[in-house]
């Protein structure tokens, strides 16, 4: 993916414009985020949409950034893990810490994005719904139990706060 390229375009990431220069046509959004914009929170592993560790929001939809053509995302609103809650942990991030839902941490950014996406659309998800919604994020450490626990903690906390 280090091909020379001639593309120049601007992406809107975490509320700010980011200029991309000398890019190759086929670069994925994940590659551009990490290698050109220095946003290392989204992780790259499978490069084929199977692991979910590169999950970001594009116009509010949770997608795998490795499967988004970066130059095709011009004009779209991109939110990465860095933009979820700048400066302090989000409730989901804090719940992951509190529930012990993090071991090696590689999958965590993608899972946090997926958990935010789920809880913003469905404030009271069943365990089945959580499992289904997180099925695109693979964790090889925790076995998922504590991750589901973290999501349920946020759902409870948000309901009691509202």
């Amino acid at each position, binding site marked *: *993916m280090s091909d020379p*390229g*001639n*593309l120049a*375009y601007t992406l809107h990431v975490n509320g700010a414009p980011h200029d991309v220069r000398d890019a*190759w*046509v*086929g670069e*994925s959004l994940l590659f551009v985020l990490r290698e050109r914009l220095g946003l290392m929170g989204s992780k790259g592993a499978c*490069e*084929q*949409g*199977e692991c*979910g560790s590169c*999950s970001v929001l594009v116009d509010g*939809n*949770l*997608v*795998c950034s*490795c*499967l*988004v*053509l970066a*130059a*095709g995302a*011009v*004009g779209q609103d991109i939110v990465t893990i860095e933009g979820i809650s700048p400066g302090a942990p989000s409730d989901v991030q804090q719940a992951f810490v509190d529930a012990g839902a993090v071991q090696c941490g590689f999958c965590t950014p993608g899972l946090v994005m*997926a958990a935010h*996406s789920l809880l913003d659309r469905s404030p009271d998800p069943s365990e089945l719904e959580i499992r*289904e*919604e997180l*099925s*695109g*994020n693979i964790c090889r450490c925790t076995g998922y139990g504590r991750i589901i626990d973290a999501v349920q903690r946020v759902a409870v906390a948000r309901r009691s706060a509202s």
Partner: protein
Amino acid sequence: MSVLVPTSLDGALQALADHPDATVLAGGTDLMVEFNGGHRRPSDVVVVNRVPELCTWRHDPATSTLRIGAAVTYAEIESEPIATWVPALAQAARTVGSPQIRHAATIGGNVGTCSPAGDGLPVLAALDALVELTSAAGVRTVPFAEFMVGPKRTTRAAGELITAVTVPVLDGWQGYTKVGVRNAMVIATASVALAVSNADRRVALALGSVGPTILRCPEAEAFAAEHADFAAGRLAADAVAACSELVRDTARPIDDHRSSADYRRHAVGVLAGRLLRRAFPHE
């Protein structure tokens, strides 16, 4: 080398007319895998999932049809109201990848890639869907069976854009089922779609991943229609078994890295039997 992101159908058609050999990209869930892996080196790319005309669907009660724009995602297809009109397509959509994949992947992309393992395709075949192709020269519609001519081979011409698929809204039970190595995030090892039309007293069966194209099962369909009591939802157990056998005989599977031909042939028979039992719950 360019990436064009048209925001109107006219703009997309113009981009394709200017770059007839351009790679058309919708959700990217197939193509980006090839780009990332270095299996395909695109020069010009036309991104079509920002074209509003391709992102809408239209239900026509007068003709009992649903026209689904090519860039409608599987996340929308698995949801209401499309799920009510074409339940089998919604079931197929639910089996595609993960939520992340379904938010991006489009019906038009599934049709354009035209893999025999494409989850939407057996449903489109069973429903005799029409594929709408548009170019600067005009619009033509092609029955799905004539559109797909081989593994990832279609009759789409250079400069043509898949703009929609149109399916009938039927009055009978329909479903889709597949087997793979696990439940989530899996490519079909074998798949079957079944659609019943009570008004026409017809049963349609289509098989995925067991041939170079999606295979319809005319013998099994005729046998089922002849022996079924459509009003009572009744089909005798021995008739279901006979249909399964006919389905197995129709399959033309191969051995490959995902499975063996023997297993695939067995699996489509089992899956067809399950769907027939759901469609006709009484023996």
